[in-house]
């Protein structure tokens, strides 16, 4: 290492946990910081629905009750925010995206998550299938609070957390890749924390 910051030792909380679970440039936190670009939306459950739209023959739509009647599972995962914090062993309850897309025939290769408040984020479709993504409604055994994305948010834990849209209302299947909110505002199009893909060009 050629460059040294004089007198910096660091706290190295990573050594208390499992260092192999902390991506480069991240630090562990026990808190749950919030990052949002605008006001927190508060959509009543009787006006909430979840949809699959775009490149498919028949759009799919679930009311809150229908959505909650779908089979769900508990997932325990590590999450990594591009603002540098990582949190280990977070526990969520939600519906696998595989369940939402079950039996669906599409030529789409990409997906855009879209949310109340106008937030969007884009991914290759293969990054939300095969047990890699969920629409979650409980965090740590409690209903997800609005400021953390409730009533439901996406959970795509293998990518930086901005790829897990809060207040998600649906998935739009697309033939072409359509960069989302942060992706057009300087952040990496894919966002793999292990490759440290934070910003454009990383």
């Amino acid at each position: 290492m050629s460059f040294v910051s004089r007198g910096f030792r660091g706290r190295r909380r990573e050594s208390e946990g499992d260092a192999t679970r902390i991506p480069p440039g991240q630090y562990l936190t026990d808190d749950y910081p919030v990052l949002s670009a605008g006001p927190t939306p508060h959509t009543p459950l009787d006006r909430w629905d979840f949809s699959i739209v775009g490149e498919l023959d028949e759009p799919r739509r679930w009311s809150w009750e229908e959505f909650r009647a779908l089979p769900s599972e508990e997932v325990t995962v590590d999450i990594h925010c591009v603002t540098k914090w990582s949190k280990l062993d977070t526990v969520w309850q939600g519906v696998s995206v595989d369940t939402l897309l079950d039996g669906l025939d599409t030529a789409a290769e990409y997906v855009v998550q879209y949310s109340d408040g106008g937030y969007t984020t884009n991914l290759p479709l293969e990054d939300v299938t095969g047990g890699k993504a969920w629409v979650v409604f409980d965090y740590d055994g409690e209903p997800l609070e609005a400021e953390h994305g409730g009533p439901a948010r996406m959970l795509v834990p293998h990518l930086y957390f901005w790829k897990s849209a809060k207040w998600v209302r649906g998935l739009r299947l697309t033939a072409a890749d359509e960069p989302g909110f942060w992706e057009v505002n300087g952040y990496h199009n894919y966002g793999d924390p292990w490759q440290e893909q934070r910003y454009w060009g990383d």
Partner: protein
Amino acid sequence: MAGAAVLGRLTWRIAEVVDIVDETPRVKTIAFDVPDWPGHRAGQHVDVRLTAEDGYQAQRSYSIASAAGGTRVELTVERLDDGEVSPYLTDELRPGDRIELRGPVGGYFVWEPSQGGPLLLVAGGSGVVPLMAMLRARDAAGSDAETRLLFSSRGWDDVIYRDELERLHGDGLRIVHTLTRSQPPGWTGYARRLDAHMLAEVGPSPTETPHVYACGPTPFVEAAARALVELGHEPHSVKTERFGPTGG
């Protein structure tokens, strides 16, 4: 300029400390000289990277406090007692020391004088930093955009940039303080937490469709954003930036 600056990979640059200013007992501004700095827009941030002798590294993000201009980049850092990076920046750094830095980052929570006003800036504590960059950019451009800053601090001695804000006041810029915990003798200003009534009094009204920027701790920004929407501001016109209890 800044648009082109973020197209390539943001490389780590060596930044040398040239000046350190005490803003409040807990907050310092550290001015760096960053050769080849590409410029930035008000509201953007940088990543800071520290490296220990054994190669251990820590990174954090900090808002840029200064308006763009040459190779000088100023960061204003609040010391978090249990932080890993901020106590190093505020307590250890001396002029001549060097750190690594890359940026500028972020294309959303930004304001440029060409966007005009009216502008409503809502700051909680060190959340004033990116908003100060906007006020400095406005001043440097000679902009007369109608601007209000509503600034919540704990006490008078905790008001970051207090003297400079007093100098900037005027020319279409109105600065309103609220002091939530203690007030100096004779204080006639607001002395409570920010609320919808206060935001309505400070204005501008939603009918004037101001650009609104709110920055501060998460509970402050949540309360401010909710009150602004209740007052009738379009959610899309309210841009927020929040920082949690950890931040280094």
